[in-house]
């Protein structure tokens, strides 16, 4: 049956509308869980708040486990899911740049927009910075193009590239997640408590 859009159960024309609805809910949840504070995000790097790590790791896990159960029961065909294409070096370098921006600014692109919505000045500056970055990137795209389009590996997943059973992978991934939660909790307790 699913996924709904590729199988034509929901027409393609609804893409943008659904995206807006999901975006609103996503933004609301981000704001409600306090992710629009740059201190909360920076906490991951300074070791006083690991909420971001826990939330996103858990979200990925719940989605992954849920998806594979739905696949098992025949509601969703995992092989039809959209897999984002991998451009290896582009992803690595882009990830490093984004990580640096993450630590220094304390926002990810999503949370920065959330914070703009509630009127945080640092987030407004941050978003202007993003815009400038986008502008520079677009203007100098011919320089970045080989990196941007190079080392293309196709629409691969970890399961494909490692060649392991997806079910075992999910199980191991879950264990890794829980261990990382425990470790992050230990780190947080060792750190001085910061109130913000």
């Amino acid at each position, binding site marked *: 049956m699913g996924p709904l859009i590729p199988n034509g159960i929901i027409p393609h024309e609804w*893409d943008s509308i659904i995206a807006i609805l999901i975006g609103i809910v996503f933004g609301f949840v981000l704001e409600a869980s306090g992710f629009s504070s740059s201190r909360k995000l920076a906490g991951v790097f300074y070791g006083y708040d690991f909420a971001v790590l826990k939330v996103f790791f858990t979200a990925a896990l719940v989605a992954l486990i849920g998806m594979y159960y739905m696949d098992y029961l025949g509601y969703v065909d995992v092989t039809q899911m*959209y897999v984002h294409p991998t451009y290896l070096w582009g992803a690595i370098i882009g990830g490093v740049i984004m990580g640096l921006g993450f630590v220094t600014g304390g926002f990810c692109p999503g949370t920065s927009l959330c914070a703009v919505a509630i009127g945080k000045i640092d987030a407004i500056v941050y978003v202007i910075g993003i815009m400038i970055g986008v502008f520079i990137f677009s203007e100098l795209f011919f320089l970045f193009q080989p990196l941007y389009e190079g080392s293309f590996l196709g629409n691969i997943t970890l399961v494909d590239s490692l060649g392991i059973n997806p079910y075992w992978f999910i199980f191991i991934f*879950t264990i890794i997640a829980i261990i990382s939660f425990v470790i992050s909790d230990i780190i947080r307790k060792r750190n001085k408590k910061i109130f913000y």
Partner: protein
Amino acid sequence: MVKKKVAKVLAFRYMALAGILVILAGGLVLLPKYEKHEGIKPEQLLSNVISPERYITTDYLADKLVNQDPSYLLIDVRDEESYNTYTLPNAINIPLAKLLDEDSEMYLNQDQFNIVLFSNDNFHADQAWILCNRLDYKNLHVLKGGVNMWYNTIINPLKPTEDMPAIAFELFTFRKAASMYFGVAYPEQFKAKKVKKVIPKKVITVKKKKKAPAEGGC
């Protein structure tokens, strides 16, 4: 007192949630695996089987070939020897045994052409048709009667007797003209000029079908 009890229970809430995650993930590993139904659904296959679009007649195909309709891709599923002996103009040879090869997929799994499968009769072509349908390939047709029917109707059409309706004569005229197009010479033609028409083999290139990806991302 009650609050304390609640707090005591709630102290374990993260452990409990972690436990649930592990159990669910472990469940996926332990669930008995079953072979998934690959290809299209039986109902879909049935509706394809009984669809009138499944077969095309030799007359229809001859008309398309004479008019050089570029949207038809002929695929000969007989073996290579028969293919080399005689085949329809511009047909591509994909023997039934090699139907599932990677090279064959390029021709079969696309939506630019109407594919016409044929063999000597329509037996092997039908088998190829079913297999390709199960794989959800599009625009597949079978030449009714195959090469034999082609020979009996187009190449060597039966002259209608005088008591037959006019429509039979029209059909005969069409078939005769078509056979001339495909290189059959008739005695009355000989007196005029003997020109063997050579139809150049077209090279049919097939673009791989692109799947339109749904965009996603953070």
